[in-house]
């Protein structure tokens, strides 16, 4: 059963998304419907997240962003403090607002996928995949087993480089210079690997509706697995050393702690939720991921989130290796990938598509009219990630800020759209 991803949380039977003052629900009992709700986060969705502002002697608003050396993205944090302890956090991502959902209206399907990829460059494949699944669901298009496996390979590659990026950012915040250099080398090698096998460092422009935009050479997958295995070994060596560094562990342990009740109430998913001990991953619903080891941790702090991400790197590398083998078996058994039903692409309908992005569940709802987008709505994991950041930072001190923010893997581009 799909669990709540929406801010309403708590209802185990429903998937919830929100749009303006409405909430989209879908369940086996009642089907799909829009219901009206008044939820604070819904109202704040397009401007940012505002907590209860704190006033008093010596309390001031420390503004961090949109131009700062600490955070490269153009967004702003408002930290209410009296100088040391953080009393309230407001997040403003309006600097990055590009109205991408509305710009997709009227576009053809492949152009709409390009727009989805532009929401957040480092989650480009996740966005493209969720939207293509929504479109394929709307048009009742069946996709081939080969395509399902190729998509999983690309999705897991995206997870690997994003997780390594997050861990390198955490190491950088703790001044682990040697480790950071080596992690950055692995990170750059992963981006080059993406480019070599998918034609783009950030896996853009590869996914299509019921197919891929470029032919995929499954012979090359053998080399992909080998290169990825080598990078995974290098990462494992570094990670083991990192766990021995008391300096590093001390900065992450008990920093920005979020318990499972709070996490579920916020609606956060992905490594953040799994780091609180909740075994939830959309990939568990996918039969192609049979036997997935869902990494969890118990503490809910920055260290737990890093542990979950590291475990997921190893798991993703194994998944890619397995998928490569299965693709080879499909080819050897002579099963053709199938061209997909191109005539269905001019149809109308509505559909919903999901995918487990590196930072949590991503969902798209699309409505189509004669092969053009008439409505699109994206529920991105970073919105909930920022809400979790604001909750978990309360009571922490200023120097914990980078360890908290980086560990959640939330991005302004993803939230602002």
């Amino acid at each position, binding site marked *: 059963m799909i669990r709540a991803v929406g801010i309403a949380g708590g209802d185990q039977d429903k998937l919830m998304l929100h749009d303006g003052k409405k909430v989209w629900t879908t369940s086996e009992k009642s089907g799909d419907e829009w219901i009206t709700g008044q939820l604070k986060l819904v109202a704040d969705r397009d401007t940012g997240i505002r907590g209860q502002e704190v006033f008093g002697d010596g309390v001031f608003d420390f503004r961090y962003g949109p131009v700062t*050396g600490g955070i490269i993205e153009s967004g702003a944090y408002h930290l209410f403090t009296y100088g040391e302890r953080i009393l309230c956090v407001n997040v403003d991502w309006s600097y990055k607002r*590009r109205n991408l959902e509305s710009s997709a209206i009227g576009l053809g399907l492949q152009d709409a996928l390009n727009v989805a990829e532009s929401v957040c460059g480092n989650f480009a494949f996740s966005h493209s995949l969720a939207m293509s699944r929504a479109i394929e669901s709307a048009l009742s298009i069946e996709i081939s087993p080969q395509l399902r496996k190729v998509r999983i390979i690309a999705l897991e590659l995206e997870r690997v480089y994003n997780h390594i990026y997050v861990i390198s950012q955490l190491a950088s915040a703790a001044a682990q210079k*040697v480790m950071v250099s080596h992690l950055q080398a692995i*990170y750059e090698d992963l981006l080059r690997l993406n480019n070599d096998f998918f034609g783009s460092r950030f896996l853009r422009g590869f996914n299509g509706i019921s197919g891929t935009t470029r032919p995929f050479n499954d012979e090359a997958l053998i080399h992909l697995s080998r290169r990825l295995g080598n990078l995974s070994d290098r990462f494992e060596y570094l990670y083991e050393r990192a766990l021995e560094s008391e300096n590093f562990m001390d900065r992450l342990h008990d920093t920005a702690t979020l318990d499972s009740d709070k996490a579920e109430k916020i609606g956060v998913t992905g490594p953040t939720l799994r780091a609180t001990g909740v075994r939830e991953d959309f990939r568990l619903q996918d039969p192609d991921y049979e036997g997935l080891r869902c990494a969890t941790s118990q503490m809910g702090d920055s260290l737990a989130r890093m542990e979950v991400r590291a475990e997921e790197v190893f798991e993703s590398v194994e998944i890619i290796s397995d998928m490569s083998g299965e693709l080879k078996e499909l080819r050897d058994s002579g099963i053709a990938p199938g061209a997909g039903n191109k005539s269905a692409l001019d149809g109308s309908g509505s559909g919903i598509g999901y995918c487990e992005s590196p930072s949590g569940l991503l969902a798209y709802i699309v409505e189509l009219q004669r092969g053009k987008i008439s409505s699109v709505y994206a529920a991105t994991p970073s919105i909930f990630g920022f809400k979790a950041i604001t909750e978990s930072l309360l009571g922490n001190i200023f120097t914990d800020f980078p360890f908290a923010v980086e560990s959640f893997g939330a991005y302004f581009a*993803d939230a602002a759209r």
Partner: protein
Amino acid sequence: MKWWPFYGLTRRLTERTRYAKDMTFPSASRIFRKSLHIYPIDVGNANDLNFDMRALQAPQYNIHRFGIFFADVPRHADVLLVLGRPTEKMVPVLLETVNQMPGPYSIVSIESERDRRDIESPGGVDIDNLQLPNLVAHITDYHEPRDIIAVLLNLMGKVN
């Protein structure tokens, strides 16, 4: 397990390659020949350019060997890297950042091909219309960090 420094010494990660690119703009000032401090500002890109800024610091490129360093604030920088096509709300922020740059300075604008097709930041402001001072390069077909290194080396008057 090897002791950290030995692990580091056993791995040669810096690549030996040429970053040359056909460019015609001259070095902004001879004082940049030996070192160049850069400050990237995200004005509304999809975040992949920001991720590539992190990649630019990878040992494969080892930009320090060319004397290129990241500055923490615009006031310590020689070159402002403008990443993406500005959203309306970032325009005044960008102009103020330019205002904070110490002279002599240069501005390099980097956009992806999708920016030019108005996909990445629809409704964004064309940087040419902002008439930024000292805009020495406008990369509109960005692919990878090597493109940035090539521009910066040209700016320094170096050909590697």
